[in-house]
């Protein structure tokens, strides 16, 4: 589904990704871990086309399409979803209006008619239950005045609404208490199918108790330096990242 080959990217001339390669197939969950500043969030930004970053080298193919040629909105419409680490507030724009615009843009891209108000509201009601989201949140402005936990739940709600092929969860666990974490993780698990995939970016192995990955990768200094099964996450939890840094820097 997704193939990243030798990806290099920088922000304001500073190289962050330095030859990253990764393959994700349908039905898989990949966890990406690594120390601060390794380039985890940059990877999420580059895959979704954040204009702050410049790709200087490498290839990314998504379902046989050259992803790097697509605009950010078309990447979304092709089925890439990012659950933001810091979801932004958009004052005055109601969640309903925002989501309806997004859903209908996706439908237009697929040459489908816009959804009727009734169908949309029905779908919204179903998906909200998935993340145990309060009815009131949907009538408020996008993320405005939401607590940290509400914002993250709102991300997963949007993910459910847009039904992506590939979801990238960027530090979705940060700032969540244990109950919110469970709710968010449950939501993600319920959305898992054999034809979609996830990349879970996290600092701690805690989240991986709830969302069980098929593969764990360690990102360090702009590259994936170690890959393994879910047991790698436990080892990292126990030993920290220093031993990996030494391995790599000692090369």
């Amino acid at each position, binding site marked *: 589904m997704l193939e990243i080959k030798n990806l290099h990217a920088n922000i304001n001339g500073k190289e962050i990704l330095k030859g990253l390669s990764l393959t994700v197939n349908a039905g898989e969950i990949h966890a990406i871990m690594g120390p601060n500043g390794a380039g985890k969030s940059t990877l999420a930004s580059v895959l*979704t*086309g*954040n*204009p*702050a970053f410049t790709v200087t080298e490498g290839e990314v193919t998504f379902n046989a399409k050259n992803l790097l040629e697509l*605009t*950010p*909105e078309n*990447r*979304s*419409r092709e089925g890439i*979803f*990012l659950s*933001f680490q810091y*979801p*932004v507030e*958009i*004052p*005055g*724009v109601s969640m309903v*209006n*925002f*989501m309806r*615009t*997004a859903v209908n*843009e*996706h439908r237009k*891209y697929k040459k489908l008619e816009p959804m009727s108000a009734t169908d949309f509201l029905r779908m919204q009601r179903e998906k909200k239950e998935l993340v145990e989201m309060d009815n009131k949140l949907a009538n408020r*402005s996008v993320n405005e005045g939401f607590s940290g936990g509400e914002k993250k739940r709102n991300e997963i709600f*949007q993910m459910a609404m*847009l039904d992506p092929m590939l979801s990238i969860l960027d530090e979705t666990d940060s700032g969540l208490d244990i109950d919110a974490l469970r709710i968010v993780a449950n939501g993600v698990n319920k959305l898992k199918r054999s034809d979609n995939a996830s990349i879970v970016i996290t600092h701690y192995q805690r989240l991986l108790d709830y969302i069980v990955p098929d593969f764990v990768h360690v990102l360090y200094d702009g590259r994936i330096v170690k890959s393994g099964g879910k047991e790698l996450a436990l080892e990292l939890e126990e030993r920290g990242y220093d031993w990996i840094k030494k391995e790599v820097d000692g090369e």
Partner: protein
Amino acid sequence: MSTDILNEVTQTDYKYGFTTDIETDIIPIGLNEDVVRLISSKKNEPEWMLEFRLKAYRHWLTMKLPDWAHLNIPEIDYQSIAYYAAPRINAPKSLDEVDPELLKTFEKLGIPLHERMALSGIAVDAVMDSVSVKTTFKESLSELGIIFCSFSEAVENHPDLVKKYMSSVVPYTDNFFATLNCAVFSDGSFVYIPKGVRCPMELSTYFRINAMNTGQFERTLIVADEDSYVSYLEGCTAPMRDENQLHAAIVEIVAMKNAEVKYSTVQNWYPGDKNGVGGIYNFVTKRGICKGAYSKISWTQVETGSAITWKYPSCILLGDNSSAEFYSVAVTNHHQQADTGTKMLHIGKNTTSHILSKGISAGLSQNSYRGLVKINPAAENARNFSQCDSLLLGDKCGAHTFPYMEVNNDTAIVEHEATTSKINEDQIFYCNQRGISTEDAVGLIVNGYAKEVLNKLPMEFAVEAQKLLQITLEGSVG
């Protein structure tokens, strides 16, 4: 990145930029006493009206263009403007007698003049260049005693009302442009709502400039007698022309005891092209007086057009317990300049005023809010709350706020809040990531920002205004 997109500022289509090919009765350019007399005689005006015009004209000769606004106003040659242009029609009795070209024009603009087609439930007075073309629903309104007609007809048929109220809110000496209007005004709308009558439909005037080298100088007078209510809408457009055209209007509102007047404007005069060539110079004096106790006036404006906007819809709160509101969204793009705001003059006891101004600047434009809240010594317990927000799109535009306060009574409570923000790239990217294009994202964000004001507009207008905001800002953000 943001500058890349900003540099790509796309050509915004001004969809009202067409001209109508119609025979026009236009007087030669230039301004002198004979021209004033000529306008008056073209309109078959009574002597008192001519006297009023001449008095104003003579006073105007002694006045200078005000220079206090934060505007760069190019020299205007008042001798190169034609002060009267009229589509050649002879007061049509029915729609069948109206030139089909004219009807087509207003249909193109989405203004229903066919009464049987006017399902929208709005009565319209359509003004092209200097004259009122057609007023709809006049008969059914008159059954309620409501007078809704062109200003010229009012002068002819209701001279006592016109004499009593005309210039009672904006005196002929008021300011340079208002005085000029008093001398050469052409047409406009007149509304009178009798005691205890709630006007059952929205009244609307649609102003259209068509002829070249002309100025449009209309005046509107709305009188709401005791215990009455009316909601009034005003729309305006003009063809795209390379030259600048002058528009200097007057709107006066009188609200008697317990009366309420809501005045809403969507101003969309041609703003000039993206290089700042052409466009309307819009110098308008709008003022209302809450004359009786418990009367209420609210101004709601969405300003997207004009090369230069100079406009301060104001209220004199004379009656005790009267209240006034000013809700404004002013958008400027490319080379547009706007200096707009309000004046609230508190004279009566327990008077309240509320000001909510939302400025949006893009491109190379300059957008200023200018407001005065004045509490007179007699105005016990007056209250004002003002909020002025500015939103910047890009880094080459300017937003300015000039709030003035004069409080001469210790019991008054006057509050002012102001914010300035930029549309941030994170918001745009967030929308992009959900599949929403940058253009649509800007539309969503700007409409969200202006929502409090747009919510004050009548339904039909609100939808139009939302679209307009988006069109005006097309291609202006990254």
